[in-house]
């Protein structure tokens, strides 16, 4: 009996184990899921936002697409997502795999929105050599330059910002750098808000102009902390410009601790609770002191009535 149990257990283990091995080799995707098409167009904007999401969510394991610098995990290393043998899959297949995950690949079904996932797929598709309508991430056709500079001009009247990216060529001439994506970020309470807009690529003279949102709250004077940078460090290193600009809507900050409330500091206790507490303490203790005072009278009463 015991042996039978052991055999069954062993068989069961083998079964489960072989199952997982099979799973590791083939990653079956339902036919219906395969058919899905990316509903978002491969515009430079979408590709660019897909790249940003990729850098945050995927890059730590998969490395840069086509660079094969993925994390060397065992037994199965992450795939180079820019490799052609990966990109032969349909959009729907990739989408399904990102959603469900397998083994060390986490399921992103709940952690990344569908839109963001499609953006990533659009970004990955930009590396696809077989794709007929191929739109690369804005290609850089700039001369080799040194001393790259980022200049920022702020127009407070119409709330626009002009960034100029330039470098010095070998001939010693300062030229604008074209087609570089810039990020315009506003510091908020918990991180940066991207206000770059639809098309934050430098034009042929190295300029990019963005419209600052008209309704973004600033501090009491309407000041906000701007961070303008070249989105991709790969081109010219970490190039950024920090500045305090007066483009926000002047706003008096509301601190919940400023109002009288149960959660407030002692100075901001609700009036009724102060009155109740202090009133109660005063009432009770005045009676106690009255009694203590009356005690002094007791010895005198002995003499007066005797």
């Amino acid at each position, binding site marked *: 009996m015991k042996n039978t149990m052991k055999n069954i257990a062993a068989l069961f283990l083998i079964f489960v184990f072989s199952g997982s091995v099979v799973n590791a080799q083939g990653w079956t995707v339902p036919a219906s899921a395969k058919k899905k098409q990316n509903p978002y167009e491969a515009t430079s904007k979408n590709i660019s936002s897909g790249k940003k999401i990729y850098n945050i969510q995927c890059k730590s394991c998969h490395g840069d697409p086509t660079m094969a610098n993925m994390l060397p995990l065992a037994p199965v290393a992450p795939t180079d997502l820019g490799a052609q043998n990966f990109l032969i899959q349909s959009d729907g297949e990739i989408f399904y795999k990102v959603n469900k995950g397998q083994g060390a690949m986490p399921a992103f079904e709940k952690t990344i929105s569908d839109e963001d996932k499609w953006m990533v797929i659009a970004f990955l598709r930009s590396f696809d050599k077989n794709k007929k309508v191929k739109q690369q991430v804005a290609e850089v056709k700039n001369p080799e330059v040194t001393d790259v500079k980022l200049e920022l001009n702020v127009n407070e009247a119409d709330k626009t910002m002009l960034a100029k990216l330039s470098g010095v060529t070998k001939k010693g001439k300062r030229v604008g750098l074209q087609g570089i994506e810039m990020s315009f970020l506003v510091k908020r309470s918990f991180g940066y808000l991207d206000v770059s807009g639809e098309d934050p690529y430098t034009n042929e003279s190295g300029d990019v102009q963005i419209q600052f949102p008209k309704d973004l709250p600033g501090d009491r004077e309407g000041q906000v902390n701007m961070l303008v940078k070249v989105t991709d460090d790969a081109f010219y290193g970490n190039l950024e410009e920090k500045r305090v600009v007066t483009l926000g809507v002047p706003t008096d900050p509301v601190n919940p601790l400023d109002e009288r409330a149960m*959660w407030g500091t*002692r100075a901001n206790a609700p009036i009724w609770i102060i009155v109740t507490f202090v009133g109660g303490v005063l009432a009770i203790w005045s*009676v*106690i002191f009255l*009694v203590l005072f009356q005690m002094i009278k*007791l010895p005198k*009463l*002995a003499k007066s*009535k005797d």
Partner: protein
Amino acid sequence: MNDLPKQKETNLSFEKIKKDILHPMQNHKGLELWIVFLITVISVCGWAYYIQLKDGLGVTGMRDYVSWGLYIANFVFFVAVSLVGMLISSILGLLRIDWITPISRIAEIIAVAFVAVAGLVIVLDMGRPDRVLNVMIHGRFQSPILWDVTVITTYLTVSALLLILPMIPDLAICKKELTKASPIMKKLYNILSLGYINTPAQHKHLHKMIRTLMVLIVPIGLAIHTVTSWLFAATLRNGWDTTIFGPYFVAGAFVAGSAALIIAMYFFRVNYKLQDYITDLQFDKMGKLLVAVCLVYLYFNLNEFLVPGYKMKTGDDIHLKELFYGNWAIMFWASQLLGNIIPIILLVNKKFRKPLPIMIISLFVLAGAWFKRYVIVIPTMLHPHLPIQNVPENFVHYYPSAIEISVTVLSFALVLLIITVLSKIFPVVPIVETAESKGIEVKIEA
């Protein structure tokens, strides 16, 4: 209380009452030994507290989950027991119930001792007791902690006054009669008796003060235990988040206090040979009172556990299942059955209300009351709402450490020491009131 109707004939004279009650204060064999024992216990456990003070609260079993452990459960218990002073000498006293006369002082002594040490227990629970005054300096009016500190201080003051004021005539007798007392004690009697010689004016004046305090202590007594319950009920935690916690604690306090009083009555009756004063009648009446308050407490327990147990809403269900048939079931059911239900069943029989049986039953009730507080405080703390992962093993269990148990023993020894000392220097049964209630003429010489 000379306005009471003259009572039945008695063979006691004023001289005999004085002699009977004052005698044990001067001659009491074995008392020194008892005090030495208590001081030894306090010293040994004081060393445990020194370790806690030196190394911090990490030496206790308390961790991030259970940050209110044995100390706070013990604190709630002490506050509960101290409420007997308000029940006996104030509520029953104002109702002019005469059988409480010989035991009212014991009740006040218990109240003063327990509430004084209850305040101290909070300080013992602090990692930085040197910062205790910050509660007063920086305390927020919104915080039940500030109310608790305030109301305990007030209750201690009024209880001490209610111990001393009705004792003034007796102290005048002590001053005259206790010729062998030490000079310090004579001085104490002299000061505290406030020149009382029982003139009608003094009598009237004194009883007016006492009645004022008796009325005053009712709201304070209710407040002290209601506020203690709010320390718990003002949170959203399962098991504490209930609206009846205030009256529930007050009812439980009456149970614990009455049981403690019966035990103390028994020991004073036997050791001080006060059979003529703390009679079977007092035990019988206290037995009935204990049944009454136990029934009220049982009623609150039904509401506290049956109603949430019927609904079993999310969060509460884990807590209640732990209590009903989980890890806490033995402690929970033992405190309910041995500390409440079985005593009720036994004490409705007259023969169980005799001094010895009722004292033994009261020991169970008191122990049950202590464990009940433990069950109220700790299981709830073990179920935090935050879903934290990879919690260290010692967060999710709580076992009081040896240091914690020692410091708790210290608090009990301290209570017993205070009761011992107070009953050594003050007459435990009111001499003048007892004589007056028996219609015996009282004479206090200047």
